[in-house]
C-alpha cells in the first residue's frame, strides 16, 4: 500500500536559511507519528513545510498518491491536510462558529459533529475568536481543522501552555479521533511520554536532522535512550 504522506529528503527553511536538512518520513493511512526533539530543532518547520509555508530547497512531498511538492497551501488543505498550528492562529474578528464554518468542506465532520466533540465550543459559539481561553482556542483550532474533513491532521504542540485538566481532556479527544474517526495524525509534542502514548511511531529531530525513526514502544521502554536523544544531558555525556 502506498503511504498517505511521503516526505522525501527535503531540505527547507525560510528564505535562504536552512532549518531542515535531508529529512524523510512516511506515514500510512490511519497511523500516528510523534515528532520529538528540543526547541529549535525544526519540528515546526517540518509541519509548515508539509503545509507548503516554507522555502523548499530540495526534496519532494507526496500526499495520497499525488506529488504536492509545488502546490500552494490552499490546495494542500483542500486535498485533505488539516493544520493545527502552534500559535493556534484563531481568526480574531470571526466568531467561534464562523471560525469553524469558514473552514468547512463536505464530509462526515459538520458543525454539529464538532460541537458534539467539543461541547464547550457550542457554548461559546457566538464569542469572537479573541475572547477565548487558551484551552478553548486549542479546541477551536482542532475543530476548525476537522471541519475541512482532512485525511491527515498536522498538530503542532496542541497541549502547550494549557492547564492539566484541559490537557487530559484534549488527550482523550485525540485518542478518540484516532480510534473512532480513523484519522492519520502527525503530532509535534514537547511532552514525550504523552506523545509516545498516542502515536505508534516516533521521529526525533536534532538540529534539523532525523536522529531516531522507529516505533514509540521502544523509546518508552528505554527512557535512558529517550533522554539521551532529547534531554539536555546528551551533549555533556559525549564530551
Amino acid at each position, binding site marked *: 500500500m502506498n503511504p498517505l504522506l511521503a516526505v522525501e529528503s527535503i531540505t527547507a527553511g*525560510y528564505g535562504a*536559511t536552512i532549518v531542515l536538512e535531508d529529512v524523510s518520513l512516511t506515514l500510512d493511512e490511519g497511523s500516528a507519528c510523534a515528532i520529538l526533539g528540543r526547541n*529549535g530543532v525544526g519540528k515546526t518547520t517540518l509541519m509548515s513545510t508539509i503545509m507548503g509555508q516554507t522555502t523548499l530547497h530540495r526534496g519532494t512531498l507526496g500526499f495520497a498518491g499525488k506529488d504536492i511538492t509545488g502546490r500552494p497551501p490552499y490546495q494542500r488543505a483542500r486535498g485533505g491536510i488539516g493544520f493545527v498550528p*502552534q500559535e493556534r492562529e484563531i481568526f480574531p474578528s470571526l466568531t467561534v462558529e464562523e471560525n469553524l464554518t469558514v473552514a468547512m468542506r463536505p464530509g462526515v465532520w459538520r458543525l454539529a459533529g464538532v460541537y458534539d466533540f467539543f461541547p464547550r465550543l457550542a457554548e461559546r459559539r457566538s464569542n469572537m475568536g479573541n475572547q477565548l481561553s487558551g484551552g478553548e482556542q486549542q479546541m477551536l483550532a482542532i475543530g476548525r481543522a476537522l471541519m475541512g474533513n482532512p485525511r491527515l491532521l498536522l498538530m503542532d504542540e496542541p497541549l*502547550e501552555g494549557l492547564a*492539566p485538566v484541559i490537557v487530559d481532556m484534549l488527550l482523550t479527544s485525540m485518542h478518540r479521533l484516532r480510534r473512532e474517526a480513523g484519522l492519520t495524525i502527525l503530532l509535534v*509534542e514537547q511532552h514525550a511520554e*504523552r506523545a509516545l502514548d498516542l502515536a505508534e511511531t516516533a521521529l526525533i529531530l536534532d538540529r534539523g536532522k532525523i536522529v531516531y525513526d522507529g516505533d514509540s514502544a521502544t523509546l518508552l521502554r528505554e527512557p535512558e535512550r529517550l533522554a539521551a536523544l532529547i*534531554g539536555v544531558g546528551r551533549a555533556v555525556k559525549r564530551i
Partner: protein
Amino acid sequence: MAEAALETVALCKSFGALPVARNIDFRLPVGARHALIGPNGAGKTTFINLVTGRLMPSSGRILLGGADVTSLAPEGRVKRGIGRTFQINALFNRLTVLENVLLAVGERHGVAGDMLRPAGARRAVIAEAYALLERLALADDAGRLVRELPYGRQRLVEIAIALGLEPRVLLLDEPAAGVAAAETGLILDIIENLPSDIAVLIIEHDMDLVFRVAQRITVLVQGAVLVEGSPAEIAADERVQEVYLGKDSHG
C-alpha cells in the same frame, strides 16, 4: 565577588495581563561565558530586548558595569558596552561586508553624525573594521554585497558588526540558527576565540554548542529563572529534564 558586566534585579515585564518576565535576577560577570536556554516562549528573546532597551521593563532594574541603565535609550546602552546579534539576520543587505562593519565601528568612534568630513578620510575607522574582518576570516568577502553571501557567512557578519562595537557584554541570539550543520563549526570557533574580557550571553537551542561554549547555564521557563548552574549541574537537574522531556511532575 567578581564585578558584574551586566546585572538585572527583580526584572519584570508584562504584556497586558500576560507576564513574560517574572522577577529575573541575573548576573553576568566580566569575561563570563553564559548560556540562556529554555523552551519556546520562555521569554529568552524578551529578556534580550529588555536588556538592550527595545522593551521597557514593568519593574526592576538593569545595571551595566554597575551603572543603572534601566531608563536609558537603546543607543545609550550600546555606548555603555552592549552589543547584540539577531536570531534572524538583520544586516545592511545592499552594502558590502566592509561597509556593514564600518557603520558599527563609525558609531562607536562617535564620528557617524559628522556631516562634513568624508567617511573615506577616517582611516583609523576603516583600518579597525578591516582588521576585524581579517580576524573573522571575512577579509576575502570584504568587497562583496552582504546579500550575495551564503547564509552561514552572513551569520559571521552579524557577529562582526556586534564586535565592531567593542562590547563589554555580547548578546548572541541563536548564532547558529538557520545555518547548515556543516557550517556551524566555523561559528563555534569564532565564539570560542572571542576576547576573554568580553562577557558573552548566548541564547541557543543547539545543546552541543551550549555545552561546548558555556561555563554557566541559566534555564528560563515561562518568564522566570528555573535554575542556574554549571553545565554538569544543569544536565543532571531533574527539573530541567522534566522541562525538556515533558515528564509530568504532577502525574
